């Protein structure tokens, strides 16, 4: 296992479209282990996408059990070839990203998402996430499409929009 170096903005590699994973062999398991270790070493520790460590593959990790504030979560999610298939709700939240150190800004995200993905064995899975976990999923999946949260900023500061309560 190793902590991999994080690419930081404006590295053009962060804007690439990641390639789907076809090989579910030991190399994938090794990369997943490195991603987990690298994520844990980061300031947030709850999400990472393979393109951030210069592996242009559709892989991301989300682990909201490690969030500073307790929230509904599914523990460690290893998302391979993920795709969000349902969105609902909308909320503003201030995000940061390991690839853009020291900058936070308000981003609108869906409050609930359904995400289809494959696990490390290539088996199809579905997760229904809400709140912070839904936000983390959307943020990390954006990395696979070469999109950074700075492309989605609604305001640097003030957040006076009422937050939608989750039912």
């Amino acid at each position: 296992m190793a902590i991999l170096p994080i690419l930081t903005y404006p590295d053009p590699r962060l804007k690439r479209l990641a390639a789907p994973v076809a090989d579910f062999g030991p190399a994938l398991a090794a990369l997943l282990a490195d991603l987990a270790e690298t994520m844990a070493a980061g300031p947030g520790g709850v999400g990472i996408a393979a393109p951030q460590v210069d592996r242009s593959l559709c892989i991301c990790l989300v682990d909201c059990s490690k969030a500073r504030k307790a929230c509904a979560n599914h523990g460690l999610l290893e998302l391979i070839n993920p795709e969000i298939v349902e969105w609902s709700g909308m909320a503003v939240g201030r995000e940061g990203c390991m690839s853009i150190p020291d900058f936070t800004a308000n981003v609108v995200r869906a409050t609930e998402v359904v995400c289809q993905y494959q696990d490390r064995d290539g088996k199809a899975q579905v997760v229904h996430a809400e709140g912070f976990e839904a936000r983390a999923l959307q943020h990390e999946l954006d990395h696979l499409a070469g999109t950074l949260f700075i492309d989605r900023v609604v305001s640097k500061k003030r957040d006076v929009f009422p937050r939608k309560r989750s039912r």
Partner: protein
Amino acid sequence: MDVHYVLLTVSGPDRPGIVAAIAEALLAARCNLEDSSMTQLRGEFAILLIVRLGDGGVAALEAHIGPAARDLGLAYALHPLAAGEVGRPAAAGRTPCLITVFGADHPGIVAPVARFLADLAVNITDLSTEVVGSAAKPVYAMVIEARSPVPVEELETGLARVARDLACDVSVKEIEEYPL
């Protein structure tokens, strides 16, 4: 002391082109515009910014800002900053929060709210106020961003008391930051 940074303030009657003119003057003086806040207040436009000086130092900056400001009828002031003054203050152990105060406009809304926060050592990082509504029924709106060393619930309880005396509505909420 070698001055590398200055705080520059510029203000005057608003019109399109102020930011462009000031930014061009800074560029011509080979200065760097670092952190800044610029806003329209009624018919005025106010600029606050931290400038990193170029080789020409303060003299070069003044030589370019002076004429630009004069052309647009703007007042400006330069405050040299010591190297130690340009770092970012540590935010650890402080909860970022957003405080809003709304109420019928009357004198003395900002002072008691700010005093309450000051006495708890809450650091205001951004504050803006606006009088909105009709002339007959003006409403005062204040939005504060702050970093609080005390729990948000404690702020809420205390501010509710202050707001009651002022007949204002107050809300406090933690600004959740999501490092991802």
